[in-house]
């Protein structure tokens, strides 16, 4: 299973390094969402500092769906999806590889969006809370990718493809989104405690990675 995961992960990373499709699109889209927020809500007010983490994660939830869509659309376009199905490997391994690739794409997107976000919303990470930001990003991206990878495979099998993923994915990620916003808020100094939210994120991640590993084979077959 781990070997399959490694091969799939390496394949996706190489494709991404050559094309930069997923990260590039997600990055530009995140910036666009921030620009739209600025016009819609006037970001030059002190109130915005408190809400900054919310804007970040909303931008990220939307742009993340672009990257996640790419994950299985890629296989469908080239007809490689069928090869994956017929390959004599464990479906859970394929899921794990795809999932890890998506976690990395989401994390890289977050890291390159972060400076722009700090500049636009005039906010900053509290000195001794860098660990909280790192944890928030990693656990949040993991939760998004856990459900997103499974649903990306589901959506890629439909006639609507890209349109269906956000409809399925966003409602299910509500708990992860709330927890991610709260933990990032904590890192930015907007709240004083977030231990419950860190725990909720961990539970969310564990639950959905487990469920996905168990049922992914049904999403893959033709």
């Amino acid at each position, binding site marked *: 299973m781990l070997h399959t995961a490694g091969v799939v992960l390496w394949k996706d990373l190489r494709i991404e390094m050559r094309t930069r499709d997923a990260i590039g699109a997600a990055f530009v889209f995140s910036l666009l969402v921030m620009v739209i927020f600025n016009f819609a809500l006037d970001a030059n007010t002190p109130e915005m500092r408190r809400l900054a983490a919310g804007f970040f994660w909303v931008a990220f939830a939307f742009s993340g769906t672009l990257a996640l869509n790419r994950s299985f659309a890629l296989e469908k376009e080239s007809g490689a999806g069928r090869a994956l199905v017929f390959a004599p490997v464990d479906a859970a391994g394929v899921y794990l590889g795809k999932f890890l690739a998506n976690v990395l794409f989401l994390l890289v997107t977050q890291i390159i969006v972060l400076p722009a976000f700090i500049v636009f919303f005039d906010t900053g990470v509290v000195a001794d809370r860098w660990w909280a930001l790192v944890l928030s990003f990693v656990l949040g991206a993991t939760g998004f990718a856990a*459900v997103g990878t*499974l*649903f990306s495979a*589901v*959506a890629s*099998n*439909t*006639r*609507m493809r890209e349109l*269906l993923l956000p*409809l*399925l994915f*966003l*409602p*299910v990620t*509500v*708990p992860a989104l*709330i*927890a991610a916003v*709260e933990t990032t808020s904590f890192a930015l100094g907007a709240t004083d405690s977030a231990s*419950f*939210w860190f725990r*909720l994120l961990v*539970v*969310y991640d564990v*639950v*959905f990675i487990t*469920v*996905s590993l168990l*049922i992914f084979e*049904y*999403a893959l*077959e*033709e």
Partner: protein
Amino acid sequence: MSQRRIADHLTDYALFLCMTASIAMMFFYAPIEREMGIVQKIFYFHVPLAWNAFLGFTIVFFCSFRYLATRDPKWDARAVSAAEVGVLFTTLVLITGPIWAKPVWGIWWTWDARLTLTFVLWLIYLGYLMLRRYIDSPERRSALAAIVGIVGFVDVPLVYFAIRWWRTQHPQPVIMGGDDSGLDPRMATTLWVSTAAYLLLFTALYRRRLRLEYARAEVDALRDEMEGRQS
């Protein structure tokens, strides 16, 4: 076949009696609530609808699970039937809720834990129904829908705890006290009769929807066979 007919008729008669009784009890037996007045009567629609909607989503989860385990199309037919009636009931919950809330709370909507959970559930199962429309192969449709049926249900407690905690951290003007704590016995009886009535309504709609699903599958199979012969 005839046994099924009899069961249908029995459900319909029971539904008719129970629904009539519940509406009569609502207006002539249950006392008028002191503070909310006549508006509180919507309670006897709203709460049973919500409970039965949750029942529907539980059935979706169970049948989705059974489908993946057995690959028997009947489980998928049951799941989709329960999901459709569940979404219908949830829609009614979301409509009756604000009608009740406006005169009592002074607002149509508040992002309270239960309200938000109901709304998120409604979105998840609308997604479930939409997904089904865009997959042509019946086996693919059943398997992929089952995945969403399982993941959506596993999500319910997480959504609930997240929103509840989120709300306790951010105090709000309106907090629904526990209804059941100080409920008049006559109100409680009415609520139970009403719940039974909506359970029967759920059953009647579910059975019909299930038969429609079987008929649809049969038509599809016949059409495939016909096209196979032509070519």
